[in-house]
C-alpha cells in the first residue's frame, strides 16, 4: 500500500470536544425564533444599524438582541459584516445611522474606550498583542481603574503599588489558566499566533467585563489549545459573563453556543438554537447563495468550502 493511500484511509481528525460537558442555557427568546426576535433578558439591543463603504452595504441590521448570561455565536460567510458589526457596537467604527444599547444605556456615539469601561470588552480578528511589552505588562494593561495611570499619581508609587500587586496576582492567575504563566516575562512578540489569541482573551478578562465579544477566538489555535479555549469560554458563562463570539468552526458553535445569530450580506437572516438554526433554509442560502444547485455536495470533486461548511452544519450526530 502506498503512503498516500495509507493517509487517505486514516480516520478523519476528530473535532475538538470541550473537556467539560457544556450546560446549555435555554428559554432565551420570546415567541418564534426568527431574525430580530425578542429576548427574555437582552444585554445588547441593536436597532437599524447601517454601515456602508461607498456603494457597499456592509451592515444593515434592523433589530437584534443578544441574551444576557448566555453564549451567543455570530456566524455567517466571509464578508457577511460580522467584524464590521463588532466594530460598530464597540465604538471602533461609526454607523451611517442606527442606535443600540448595552445594559440599557445608549452607546451610539460613545467612544471605544468608554464602551470598554462600561464592561463591553472585545478582541480582534487580527490579533493585537502589544509586541514589545512583556506578556505580564500586556495583562496589567487590561486592569480597570488603575490609580497609577494618571500621569501625576504615576510619580508617587506608594499610591499605586498595592493595586499593582493585586493586579499582578490576578494576571498571574489568569495566565496560569491560559497556560501562559511560563511566558510572563517574555515579549508578547515572541508568542506564537495561537498564544497571542489566548493572551488577548486573557487580557480582556483582566477588566472583569460583563460582555465579552470575541472575533474568531479559535482561528489559528491548535486543536489541543482549542479544547482549553472552549472550556475558558464556558467558564466565562458560569462566572456570569455574557459572551458574543464570531466563529467559522461549526462544531465549536454547536458545542458551546446557547444561541446563534446568522448574518449574510450585512443582514441578520436567521436566529435560533444552534441545532435548529442550522436546518433553516435561510442559513443554507446564506452559505451557498440563493440559487444553489439542488444536488451539490454529492460529488466530492466539486465540493467547495461552503458546501463542506453546510455539511458540517447539517451533520448533527453529536
Amino acid at each position, binding site marked *: 500500500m502506498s503512503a498516500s493511500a495509507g493517509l487517505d484511509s486514516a480516520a478523519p481528525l476528530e473535532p475538538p470536544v470541550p473537556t467539560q460537558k457544556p450546560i446549555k442555557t435555554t428559554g432565551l427568546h420570546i415567541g418564534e425564533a426568527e431574525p430580530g426576535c425578542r429576548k427574555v433578558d437582552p444585554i445588547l439591543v441593536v436597532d437599524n444599524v447601517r454601515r456602508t463603504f461607498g456603494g457597499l452595504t456592509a451592515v444593515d441590521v434592523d433589530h437584534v438582541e443578544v441574551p444576557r448570561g448566555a453564549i451567543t455565536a455570530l456566524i455567517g460567510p466571509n464578508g457577511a459584516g460580522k467584524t464590521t458589526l463588532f466594530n460598530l457596537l464597540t465604538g471602533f467604527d461609526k454607523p451611517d445611522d442606527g442606535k443600540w444599547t448595552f445594559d440599557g444605556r445608549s452607546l451610539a456615539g460613545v467612544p471605544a474606550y468608554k464602551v470598554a469601561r462600561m464592561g463591553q470588552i472585545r478582541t480582534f480578528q487580527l490579533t493585537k498583542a502589544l509586541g514589545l511589552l512583556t506578556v505580564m505588562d500586556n495583562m496589567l494593561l487590561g486592569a480597570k481603574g488603575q490609580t497609577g495611570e494618571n500621569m501625576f499619581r504615576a*510619580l508617587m508609587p506608594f499610591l499605586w503599588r498595592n493595586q499593582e500587586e493585586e493586579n499582578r496576582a490576578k494576571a498571574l492567575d489568569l495566565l496560569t489558566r491560559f497556560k501562559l504563566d511560563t511566558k510572563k516575562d517574555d515579549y508578547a512578540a515572541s508568542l506564537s499566533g495561537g498564544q497571542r489569541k489566548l493572551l488577548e482573551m486573557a487580557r480582556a478578562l483582566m477588566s472583569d467585563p460583563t460582555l465579552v465579544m470575541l472575533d474568531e477566538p479559535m482561528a489559528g489555535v491548535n486543536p489541543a489549545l482549542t479544547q482549553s479555549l472552549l472550556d475558558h469560554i464556558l467558564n466565562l458563562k458560569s462566572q456570569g459573563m455574557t459572551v458574543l463570539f464570531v466563529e467559522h468552526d461549526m462544531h465549536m458553535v454547536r458545542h458551546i453556543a446557547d444561541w446563534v445569530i446568522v448574518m449574510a450580506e450585512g443582514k441578520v437572516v436567521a436566529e435560533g438554537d444552534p441545532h435548529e438554526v442550522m436546518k433553516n433554509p435561510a442559513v443554507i442560502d446564506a452559505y451557498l447563495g440563493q440559487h444553489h444547485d439542488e444536488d451539490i455536495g454529492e460529488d466530492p470533486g466539486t465540493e467547495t468550502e461552503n458546501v463542506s461548511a453546510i455539511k458540517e452544519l447539517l451533520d448533527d450526530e453529536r
Partner: protein
Amino acid sequence: MDWGAIFNNAAVELVSPTTAAYALAALGLAVHFGYTGLLNFGQAGFMALGAYGYAISILTFGFPVWGAFLVGVGASVVFALILGIPTLRLRADYLAIVTIAAAEIVRLLFTTNTFAAVTGSANGLSGYKNEFAALNPLADGSYGFGPFTNNAYDTWLRIVAWSIVILAALLVWQVMRSPWGRVIKGIREDEDAVRALGKNVYAYKMQSLIFGGVLGTIAGMIFALPRAVVPSNYQTTLTFFIYAILLLGGAATVLGPIIGSMIFWVLLSFFSGFIARAVEAGWLPFMTAIQGGQLRFILVGVAIMLIVIFRPQGIFGNKKELAFVR
C-alpha cells in the same frame, strides 16, 4: 599637530550647557518617539518657543527668571495643544507632517521683520543673561579642573543645566515604569488594542506630546543661555540632529539621549578641531578652512552611521527588542 588642544576642546563639550540642552531635547523626543511612537519632527519649534519665550519675557516685559521660564513652558503647552488637537486622532504620519511645518512657521514668525521690535528679526535677541547671572550664588573666580575649568557664571549655568537634565531623566524614568508609562508604551505598539482596554488613547497621546514638548522647550532655554537667540539656529536640521542623538543612544531609554548627546558633541568638537588643524598643517591641500568646517558634520554622520549599523538598537537600547522589529 596639537592633539592636547583637540582633546581638551572635545572634553569641554562633555558637560557644556549645549550638550545638556541637546540631551534634554532628545529626552523629550524619547518620550514622543521612543515611548509613545509619536513622530514629532518639530522639536526645533518647541526649543525656539523656549528660547524666545524666555528672552522676550525678560527683554520686552521685564519678567523675573521664573516668570520667563513659565511663559516659555506655557507657550509650548499651547503649541502642543494646537499640534495635537487636530492630528492625534489621525494616523501617525499626519503628526509628522504637521509638526515639521509648524516648527518652520514658528521659526519664520520669529524671523519676519513684522515683529522685529520684539523678536529682533533675523538678528535675534541678546542681553537677557543678567537676570539669570544675578541668581548665581557662586562667588567670582574659577571652578573645576582641567578642561572643566570655568568662571563663576559658566559654572552656575552648567550646574543648573545638568541638574535640570538629571531631574528630567529621573522624571521620565519614574513615569515610564509606572502604569502610566505602560499605557504609553502600549499605544506605541497598537493604539486600538489599548483603546479596546478602556484607555483614553487621545488624552494619553496629548499628555505625552505636552510632556516631551515642555522638555524640548526647557532645552531651548538652556540652549539660549550661553549664546544669543538667533532664528536660524532653530531650523529643521536641529530636529534631525536631536533625532540622530536619540537613535545613537537608544530611542526608548532614559540614559540614551544623555550619553548620545555627549558622544555627539564630543565627536563634533573632536572632528572640527582635528580638521581645522589638518587643513592648517596642509594635510588636506584640496580643502579650504570653510570646507573643513562642513566636513566635520560628514564625519559625525559617518560615525553615527557606523554605530547605528553595528549597534542598531542604540547604545542603551535592548538588543532583544530588535529581534521583533517589524
